[in-house]
């Protein structure tokens, strides 16, 4: 069998987010322009410049996972297992089917749980090594959430965690699609997960990346390698002090001053189109192609940074055999970051600058926050809904376009808008260390 001969379809989706725990609820909230960002309550945000986070509030894992013992699962594992449960239900993969056939899991995660690993170490530091919990140690490894979800749901196929920072989730979907295209697997859950915790919020605050951060209270990394730390090599904040924009992220806006962190989990059920059809599954969309690029300069060189994002988008379209004019909408990675949004905008101009009509686009991190490993999965779930009813969410808070924003290449609005039969969508994910991934999705023709 030739490589890439198989079609990959999405037969279900599960999501747990700050804006709802179903694709429909998420879509309604995004189209209504609601923000999931609220003052953080799960830990004291005192001393943290950005007290906001888009957390999954009132998360009750039992409501998804039942009464089995949840104690071995930390928060990110519970979020992952809940999203997996919803994706398995929506795609019709019963317990009995999973005993018969292998289902795999490709999970994108940046930290998995930096909270668990930090707490494990603190217990050893303060009480002595003999008091650190062995069960917690198993949850410190970056693949722990994928392992826990596989145990919970009897997922016996490939079990892989993919880490490329904020590009992890989209990269995991791309990887899973390739496993199916090459005939290695016929069914995988793919997407990402991340949790909000003091450790990650404080880390990003000290990196100067959260919106509303006071640029004067800079942390000191020992020779940080990435430009996206928010500070230049002399220690100056590399964006203007736009604190008047407040504590909400506004992607592509001239006043943007950083992002808020979000959390959640989103998983798609990806299947070989033929085996999915054979079991009578409905296909929500097709994963048509993907592309990637790495910026060796890690953002320090604008030309390289833009070129890497450009490569990812072009490769994804080549892989999908689509031209720039055939793309109907774009889900941008932009999160309100000063440098990252600009690089993505310039890359979009390079790829779509010659289009006849500007490309309708959205940036849902304006409402969901930067969910790190979970972002790509959430973007994909939201895009499935856009393909279903044609409604494209707006960019919350957007008022003043950045001067580099290519308005002839893409069109963005503050409010949602109706698209006419969107067929092909492109999704972008750009990490903090040069990782870029793009994914091309195509609506199933019979849906229209």
């Amino acid at each position, binding site marked *: 069998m030739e490589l890439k001969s198989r079609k990959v379809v999405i037969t279900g989706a599960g999501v747990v987010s700050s804006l709802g725990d179903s694709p429909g609820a998420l879509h309604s909230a995004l189209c209504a322009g609601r923000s999931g960002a609220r003052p953080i309550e799960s830990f004291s945000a005192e001393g943290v410049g950005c007290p906001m986070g888009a957390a999954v509030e009132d998360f009750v894992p039992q409501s998804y996972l039942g009464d089995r013992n949840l104690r*071995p699962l930390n928060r990110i594992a519970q979020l992952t297992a809940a999203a997996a449960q919803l994706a398995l239900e929506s795609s019709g993969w019963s317990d009995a089917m999973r005993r018969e056939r292998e289902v795999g899991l490709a999970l994108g995660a940046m930290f998995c749980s930096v909270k668990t690993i930090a707490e494990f170490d603190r217990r050893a530091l303060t009480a002595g090594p003999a008091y650190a919990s062995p069960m917690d140690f198993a949850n410190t490894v970056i693949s722990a959430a994928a*392992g826990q979800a596989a145990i919970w749901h009897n*997922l016996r196929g490939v079990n892989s965690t993919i880490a490329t920072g904020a590009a992890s989730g989209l990269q995991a979907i791309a990887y899973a699609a390739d496993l199916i295209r090459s005939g290695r697997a016929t069914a995988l859950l793919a997407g990402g997960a991340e949790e909000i915790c003091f450790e990650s919020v404080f880390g990003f605050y000290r990196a100067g990346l959260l919106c509303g951060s006071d640029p004067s209270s800079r942390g000191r990394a020992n020779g940080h390698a990435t430009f996206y730390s928010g500070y230049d090599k002399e220690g100056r904040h590399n964006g203007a002090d736009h604190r008047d924009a407040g504590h909400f992220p506004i992607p592509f806006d001239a006043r943007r001053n950083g992002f808020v962190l979000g959390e959640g989990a989103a998983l798609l059920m990806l299947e070989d189109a033929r085996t999915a059809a054979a079991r009578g599954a409905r296909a929500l969309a097709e994963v048509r192609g993907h592309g990637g690029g790495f910026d060796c300069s890690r953002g320090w060189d604008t030309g390289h940074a833009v070129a890497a994002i450009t490569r990812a988008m072009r490769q994804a379209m080549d892989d999908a055999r689509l031209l720039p004019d055939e793309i109907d909408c774009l889900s941008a990675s932009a999160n309100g970051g000063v440098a990252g949004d600009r690089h993505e905008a310039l890359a979009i101009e390079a790829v779509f600058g010659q289009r006849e009509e500007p490309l309708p686009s959205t940036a849902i991190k304006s409402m969901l926050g930067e969910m790190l490993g979970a972002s790509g999965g959430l973007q994909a779930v939201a895009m499935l809904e856009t393909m279903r009813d044609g409604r494209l969410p707006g960019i919350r808070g957007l008022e003043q376009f950045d001067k580099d924003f290519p308005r002839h290449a893409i069109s963005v609005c503050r409010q949602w808008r109706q698209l006419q039969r969107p067929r092909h969508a492109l999704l972008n994910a750009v990490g903090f260390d040069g990782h870029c991934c793009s994914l091309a999705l195509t609506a199933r023709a019979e849906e229209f």
Partner: protein
Amino acid sequence: MRRRIVITGIGVVTSIGAGREVFWRNLLAGSSGISEIESFSTAGYRTRRGGEVKEFQAEDYVERLNPAGLGRASQFAIAAARLALEDASLSAGALAFEQAGVVVGTTSGEPQFVERFNDHYVKRELMRIGPELAMLYPCHVIAANVASELKFGGVNLMTPSACAAGNYAIAHAFDALRGGRAELMLAGGSDAFSRITFTGFSQLGAVAPERCQPFDRNRRGMIPGEGAGMLALEPLDRALARGARIYAEIAGYGLSCDAHHMTAAHAEGEGAARAMRQALAESDLLPEEVSYISAHGTGTPTNDRLETVAVKRVFDGAAYQIPISSIKSMLGHTMGAASAIEAAVCALAVFHDWIPPTINLETPDPECDLDYVPNQARRRRVEVAMNNAYAFGGANASLILRKRTWN
């Protein structure tokens, strides 16, 4: 016709030496890299020995980046990557930069930055904490650092699949090359010592006090280790065209999940057997055609027993004819680097027709009754080598390498 992918460069940083030649010589001699740990205080722990990489100077390898700004796992990975490129007679700029990629596996990433964070945190010195948890700790920086150092702009990611991560990375790179997404891949694994992993394995009751004795009746556990292994992988046609030395061809791999328990393997080796069978099927090989198995062989009472069960399940009677050894007896368990270093060992076994020993194997265990190549390296024709690795969360990975043939 699928593209054939070969290994043309090997780079390792280990407790028994850095660089292919010295490593292989020490490995065949049965040298042990286990010693008293010096990089952090082991006061308060029940054991104090590990497979620590001593006398490592990042400055010897890191040319473009600032070595002081890199975590130890990144330093190891860059060193192994440079050694692999040099071994492959490739310069960093040999290819268009977007055609060259990096995939690295790890268990813990750069946990020393969590420790630095906590050292301040427990003293309530929050404002002395820098951005390390966001900027230096996340494991993706390892692959990013390797690629930035070498200016590789292609496929770049981490496969943090715990103690099977190296095999996951090599499998991923193999697919990227076969799918035409890259023309050169550096793939492997890296993990550095940290008090966090040392604490964790101690608390699991899995650490032996003195020696690692895989498959010995009196084995008392694993010994934590550190290091990195990176392989240079490229398509066969490209390797032949440039007259490269070819160590071995990647024949196939299998990945599976026990979906059983976070830290305990399945009692009948069900998932491990599925991974081995998948790898054999993809490689179009029969079990009896395998000439060497590099075991996961951690030296814990359960792992070695269950691994033996799994091998017998797949190989049946042939299991008794196939030499199987664990280099963890010499290096300790280098975690995410382990299966990458072991893949390098399989490539060298295939290339040199030598099999490294399992050292410290003195008393046979009736439950581990296969040929574990005790204490002495063995000269034997190695056509096909299988590399097995198992991880927390029940992830299993089997990789098969074979001698390059001309057909």
